[in-house]
Structure formats: structure tokens, C-alpha cells
């Protein structure tokens, strides 16, 4: 086969393709920026806690918003849009987990000297609580971690959890009960 150099018409065609790809993004810049400012920190916190790795959370955050922007879907509400974003983030975290690139680990306490936090709480006690939770979370299945985080850290409803995780709403109650039981036992054991 012959390989040809790009001609002017090729470059123009590719330029048109690139422009069309940007125009096909889910939102315009202003809408995206407002949506991102509302959701990014929450999504990062979710990814960091379900994967147990901040660097992975950084990567997956970018990938999640990019895929969200390229999704060819119509959304009926802001909540629908947010749930879809969580679904993308969750699927990406699952892919990473399946490929074995993420081993949920217990984060080491930060290198701070024991003392008090700016709001008066005891740093050592705070660190211990966080380590206990991380250790207990690491004993759960990925789906359980996701569900518990959405329900109790973010206060999502059963319907939102079902939509974000791609599960049936009717099964959330029992799954959540089991996951909560397991985490409570693990926390009880850690204390």
C-alpha cells in the first residue's frame, strides 16, 4: 500500500472533523464550568475513597469528565446529569480494579506532629478514626464501598444510588443493609 503525505484538502477535512468533535461535546463551556464547579470536589472525594488512591482519583476525575462531555445523551435534569457522571466514574474505577491497577490500601497518616487541628479537634484521634475507616472500607467489596459512600457520605437517595451504580432501585435497600452491617462490624472490630 502507498502512504501519502497529507494534502491541503486532507488537513482541511481533519480540521473540520476536529471542530465538529468539539461542537458535539455535551455542553458549552459556561454550562460545563458551572457544572464542574458544583460537582468536581464531590466526585474526587468519591473516587479517592472508593479506589483508596489519590493519584488514581486524579486520573479518573479527568477521564470521567471527558467521557461525560463526549456522551451522546440528553439529560432531563441536573440530578440525572450528576448521576450519569457518577456512573461513568464508577465504571472507570471498576475497570481499573479489574485490571488490577488499584489495590485498595489503607492510607498512612500524614506526616504531621501530634497536636490539635485548626478547629480544635485532636489530630491523633482524627488520624486514628480515618485509618480505622480506611481499614474497614478496604475489607468491603467495591460495590459496597460505592453504595455506602453515596448513601451516607453524600446523602444520596436510593433512586440516585441505583441510577449512579446501574442497579435496580428495589435491590438497593437490602444491599445497603448488608454493606452497612459489614462496615459497622468492621468498625466495631477496629475500635
Amino acid at each position, binding site marked *: 500500500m502507498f502512504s501519502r*503525505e497529507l494534502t491541503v484538502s486532507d488537513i482541511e477535512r481533519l480540521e473540520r*472533523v476536529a471542530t465538529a468533535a468539539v461542537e*458535539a461535546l455535551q455542553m458549552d463551556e459556561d454550562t460545563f464550568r458551572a457544572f464542574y464547579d458544583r460537582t*468536581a470536589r464531590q466526585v474526587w472525594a468519591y473516587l479517592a475513597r472508593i479506589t483508596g488512591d489519590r493519584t488514581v482519583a486524579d486520573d479518573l476525575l479527568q477521564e470521567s469528565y*471527558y467521557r461525560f462531555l463526549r456522551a451522546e445523551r440528553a439529560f432531563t435534569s441536573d440530578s440525572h446529569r450528576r448521576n450519569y457522571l457518577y456512573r461513568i466514574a464508577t465504571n472507570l474505577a471498576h475497570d481499573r480494579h479489574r485490571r488490577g491497577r488499584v489495590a485498595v490500601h489503607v492510607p498512612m497518616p500524614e506526616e504531621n506532629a501530634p497536636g490539635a487541628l485548626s478547629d480544635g479537634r485532636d489530630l491523633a484521634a482524627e488520624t486514628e478514626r480515618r485509618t480505622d475507616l480506611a481499614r474497614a472500607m478496604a475489607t468491603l467489596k467495591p460495590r459496597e464501598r460505592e453504595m455506602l459512600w453515596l448513601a451516607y457520605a453524600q446523602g444520596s437517595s436510593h433512586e440516585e444510588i441505583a441510577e449512579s451504580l446501574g442497579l435496580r432501585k428495589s435491590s438497593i435497600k437490602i444491599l445497603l443493609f448488608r454493606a452497612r452491617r459489614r462496615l459497622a462490624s468492621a468498625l*466495631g472490630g477496629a475500635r
Partner: protein
Amino acid sequence: MTTLIECPRESEILDALASARWPSRVDAELTSHVSSCEICQDVIAVASAMREDHDTAYREANVPSSGQMWWRSEMRARQDAVREAARPVAVAQGVAAVLALGVAGVAGWFAWPTVHDFFVPAASAAQTMSPMVLPLLVAMGTLLVVAPVALYVVLSEKP
């Protein structure tokens, strides 16, 4: 015996936790219920730990700015679109080559009697004809094959 999987007072507990009223600013009746309800005890243990962790994670989140994220996504969308459009269609080229060979084979099959009839008298008449006729026919055939390729190479706008 059926196991209870939820307690009707769960939402009250979650509200109290969310508004930082638990445990000191809730009524004694709720506190007494919690002390006897295993489900609510689990809810308190899990929800209070997770809310606290959520607040910490939220504070720690160091996410790129929205402008930066938009710019990166836009760039990547452009690059991906160009890459997809410029990707050589190897499969299509392979199919086209196989089809061309197939067509040539079928055409050869049908044309064979005609070609045979043309060359056999020509070969028998070659002694009487000019010795230049056969090489001329071969040269014409070669030209028919090579000419399109040569034209493609010349017109392919290489610098």
C-alpha cells in the same frame, strides 16, 4: 423469623447527624430508641464515620480548575477526532484487494477461451508473421498494468 433491614426512624437519625444535633441535642426518646435498635446503631456508626471522612476528603480535594478541565477536554476531543479520521482503513483496503483479485480471477476464467484462441493461431502464425508481434503484445500488457501505478505515484503530491 424475619430480619429487619430498615428502621422507620433511620431518616431522623440521619437528619440529626447532618445537622450536628446528634447526640447532645436530640430528644431523650430518640436516644433511648437508638440504644435498643441495632439498625440505628449501625446507621450512626457508619454515617458519622463517613460524613467526617467526606468532609476531610472534600477539604483535601485538589482538583484542576474548570477552565483547565474544559481546555484539556476540548484538546483531547480534537485529537481523538483527528486520530480516528486519519486512521488508515486497513480492513477496507484488505477487502478491496481481495475483491479485486476475485474479479480479476473471474474475468480471467471467462476470457481464457478468447485469449487462448487469439494466441494459438498467433503462435502458429508467428513463423509467418513478423518476430516482433509477440514481444509487442507482452509489452502492451505490462504497460496496462504499470501505467495506473505510475500515474498514482506521479500525481500523489509528494514534495
